[in-house]
């Protein structure tokens, strides 16, 4: 049995839990985890709230979805989650400019250090005050190579298409490597 992971990150209230809930075959488990970082040398511990969902692919393959708030430093997360990690989804609430600064910070880190492909989900596009995807792309200073996808986390089809776009990006990147 092989397991692979995807991580859904982003500011508080951006829709991470909802996103995972829409496609998980189990009830989303929300946990608090203590994570200590070896890379930090100094023993440092941080508590991270995590959601946890599952999609069984076949007898031999399971996909786990982790939801975790964006951190200024992703070392912690990477260390425990990166084994078997396929990619990231960065969720942004398209309605709340007060969270864009934090989202930009997360994306700036990703732009520089993300070890795997990622896409950005412009969530809550069903709401009246939602910023348009192309405006958000500029507001978040997103690299033109990174996909910015409209998303409604409460709709399964929308979540599916975000996951698929991430998987297509992963395939593309594999093609480029060789």
């Amino acid at each position: 049995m092989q397991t692979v992971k995807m991580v859904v990150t982003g500011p508080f209230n951006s829709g991470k839990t909802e996103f995972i809930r829409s496609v998980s075959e189990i009830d989303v488990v929300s946990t608090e985890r203590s994570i200590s970082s070896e890379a930090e040398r100094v023993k440092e511990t941080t508590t991270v709230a995590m959601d946890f969902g599952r999609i069984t692919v076949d007898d031999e393959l399971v996909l786990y979805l982790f939801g975790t708030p964006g951190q200024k430093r992703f070392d912690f997360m990477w260390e425990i989650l990166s084994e078997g990690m396929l990619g990231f989804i960065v969720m942004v609430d398209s309605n709340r400019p007060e969270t864009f600064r934090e989202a930009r910070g997360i994306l700036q880190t990703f732009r520089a250090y993300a070890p795997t492909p990622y896409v950005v989900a412009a969530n809550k596009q069903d709401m009246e005050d939602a910023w348009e995807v192309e405006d958000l792309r500029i507001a978040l200073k997103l690299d033109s190579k990174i996909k910015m996808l409209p998303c409604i986390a409460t709709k399964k089809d929308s979540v599916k298409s975000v996951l698929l776009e991430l998987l297509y990006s992963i395939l593309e990147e594999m093609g480029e490597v060789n």
Partner: protein
Amino acid sequence: MALKGNLRDFSVVQLFNLVNLAGKTGTLTLEGPNVAAWVSFRDGKLIHAQLGNEDGTLLGVLTKAGKVRPEQSKLIKGHASDKSDKELGLLLINAGYLTQQDILASIQHYVLDVVYRLFAWVDGFFRFDNDVLPPDDHITVRLDLENVIIEGSRRIEQIQSLEDEIPNLDLALNFVERPGANIRDVHLNTQEWKVVSYINPKNSIRQIAKTNKMNETEIRTIVYGLLEAGLVEIVRAEGAPMPAQAEQFEKVNKVERESLVNRLIDRIRSM
């Protein structure tokens, strides 16, 4: 779909950057604590600005610029009160009183003066209305936003949340490849040139600061202006170590990974 929020979260500089990069046409409304302002753009260029009920009519602008004396202004008002700005402009030009150049320069100066004052606003509601423009009989200008943004960000005494905007000084900078984004067309001061001359994915922002003997706030302020003017972007410094785990992925067999990803795709499509 909306484009609105509070300036605390998305600054005037950032709004101008958005209008510039998206090439927007329309009017930005800003509501400060006591007064509102309207700034209009066409295809991402600044064309008009109005602050509260300040006299932004052609006559008001020319009087303020000293091109028309107050008593002349009164006279003109009496005789030509029914004339639109464009008609009045033509009248003044035809009478040999002012040149078209005088008029445009005065309006340009006025628009920039208003806009630079707006850059100091740190709080207040904003909204952008697509395709709303000043009436046709207004005289508008057409100014590139890169210079306005650079100059505007210089004038901000203290940029809000500067550290959050540029959290990591170990990253590097690179020039943006975009039509219209030519650093040579921008009026940079000496300090900015010093930074620009070291921009290269090999140099971290921290190294550039050190070389130029700038402190963290100084370097961040300059980088912020360049970023918001859409001239540079932040990239990973070449040679900087990748997170340890990153290398691990490369080791997994490629064919195996491809088949795995394809199985995931099939599964999610069928959900």
